[in-house]
């Protein structure tokens, strides 16, 4: 007798839970196998010298692994698409968090360098010239360190030549 509604739409008053698709056991084994293989791969790759690409490779492998977990173990594939929306939009906001923070950090020196200032002040207000850029290539200068006031007589790691 009772009419029932889900999310504003009238439905048949079924007291059974809706039919659930049960994935075959083989799928779980395949995903599990793939995760193990990828774990071995990421460890193996870490011993190879890929230089700058190693981080990217490690992250790609991690993303592939998590995609497997999310799609098949967490059943995002085939489930309510709202969940996919929630999950992906969360990642967008993580991206905003990273992106805008690094938008600051990575450009801390931009204006100073443009104007030819390459030092920073210590706590006494004296300007300490930076003798050498930290790591040769740009973008690696320790921006966070620039806030620092290294104590005198103790050059900061950036000031010391590395490698």
């Amino acid at each position: 007798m009772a009419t029932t509604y889900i999310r504003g739409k009238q439905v048949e008053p079924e007291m059974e839970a809706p039919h659930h698709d049960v994935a075959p056991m083989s799928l779980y084994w395949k995903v599990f196998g793939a995760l193990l293989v990828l774990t071995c791969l990421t460890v193996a790759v870490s011993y190879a010298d890929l230089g700058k690409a190693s981080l990217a490779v490690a992250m790609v492998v991690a993303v592939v692994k998590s995609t497997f977990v999310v799609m098949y173990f967490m059943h995002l594939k085939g489930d309510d698409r709202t969940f996919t929306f929630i999950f992906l939009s969360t990642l967008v906001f993580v991206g905003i968090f990273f992106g805008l923070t690094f938008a600051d950090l990575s450009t801390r020196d931009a204006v100073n360098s443009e104007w030819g200032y390459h030092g920073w002040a210590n706590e006494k207000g004296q300007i300490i010239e930076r003798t050498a850029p930290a790591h040769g290539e740009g973008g690696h200068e320790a921006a966070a360190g620039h806030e620092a006031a290294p104590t005198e007589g103790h050059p900061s790691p950036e000031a010391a030549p590395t490698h």
Partner: protein
Amino acid sequence: MATTTVEGALAGAAHDHREPSYIQASSGLKAWLFTIDHKRIGMMYLASVWTFFFIAGALALLFRLELLTPNLDLLLHLVGGENAAMIHAKALDLYNKLFTLHGGLMVFAFIVPSIPASLGNFFLPLMLGAKDVAFPKLNLASYYLYVIGASVVVYAILGAGLDTGWTFYTPYSTTTGTAVTTATLGVFIMGFSSILTGLNFIVTIHKMRAPGMTWNRMPLFLWAIYATSVIQILATPVLAITLLLLVMERTLGIGIFDPAMGGDPVLFQHFFWFYSHPAVYIMILPAFGVISEIIAVHSKKHIFGYWAIAISSVAIAIISFLVWGHHMFVSGQSEFAAVLFSFLTFAVAVPTAIKVFSWVATLYKGSISFTTPMLYGLMFLFTFTIGGLTGIFLGALAVDVHLHDTYFVVAHFHYVMMGGTVVAFLGGIHHWWPKMTGRMYPETLGKICSVIIFIGFNLTFFPQFIAGTQGMPRRYATYVDQYTIYHELSTVGSLILGVGLFIVAIYLLVSMFKGKQASDNPWGGASLEWATQSPPIEHNFHDTPHVDTDPYNFPNIDRSASIGHH
């Protein structure tokens, strides 16, 4: 005034008896403390947030009185000490603690939970036509987390002392000997409460809507609550981790925020404002929702630009995550980031302005009745617009460098938070008081008080704009003589404001017991909460209501009786 303008799941209409209301359903302290009824939890929140509002407000009055004169005097009498220098230092210390407690309580214990947790809890399921929120037990848990968290903060500041301001900026907060760890624990717990409330509301709106309650038939208050919840979900976890990092920095000295160890104190501000800027929209968005309801119902006119208002709430929620750097223009972030954030800040003004214009357009040719809620609604339009526009001043990079950390900022956020959120909250309470308590508040006294509050509020904060532009810095207990006049006006205004708010609290309390019986729909509202009895029955509606029109359909309301039940 029609007694029943909405036909619906009314006890009186469908049955010949009125069921006991949620208040009468069960009695005793235990029945309230362990209730999972969203309406009772909403009322408990209402009582709690108002308690904290009055505590924090009293503190504000105390240091406003101190600021009446340029030099320290009042606070000197409140502290003891062996010699004049010691008394002086202690008084300054007390001043720091007072404004920290005022800010901390107002932000975390009052404004953040104010409208969503009290009015939101009460009316969200009612307006959706649901029996309760999706997770009633979680709802109660989040109330207790809130109470525990707020108590910890009060203890931390009163018992142990905290003088960092509500922002906990490093490096001071990592080095000061005061109770930062305890206070952050309290805020952390309140953050959990906020997350759970937001989670509950989002799921409720998605999954508990009554038949026919499509997204475009949802009252705008719910859209605002939805947008608020999205921010609570996405931003508050970052606050949790920020506070965890801060505590770890204090206890372990990890060095992420410590320049002497290779860290960066500005990083703390990035982390902090990633939460706290969106959090100001947690504070103001529900107020937008309340105003949408008040303006439409009390001018008996279909809201102008329903979709524009609804979508702009969501737009504000998203854009609010892109602008946090405007709090850091002068704190050492890069020039590039400052310009970027300044630009993005202007973007948030667009959806906000869309709302204000829509409300004004709703008023146009409406049949406005100047009831107390409406007076608060109009007051909101006035004060919030000032608050919002001065926000544009502060978002402009060059202007902000001059105005940063002055009373201009203080005045700006009080115009937004107090002139916006608190005024809307007052309006909302009056608007829904008959529904919540089944009693009317005294209308004439209500109108008088709203005028007192309007005068007091503007007298308190408008002079602060002027003092700020002339360079009066915030957070100082003393000042040079040239600012005396502004502080005098401000203090007088704050006393008027305090009196106004106090009278409101008294007459509301009295009206709970002695007020005139309210009808089920005293304002002729068309949304679902008016379709049940006043106060609502325990399960909100006798039967799941059925919706086939939108909630602002006033002119046809008597004829097409659009809300029924199956």
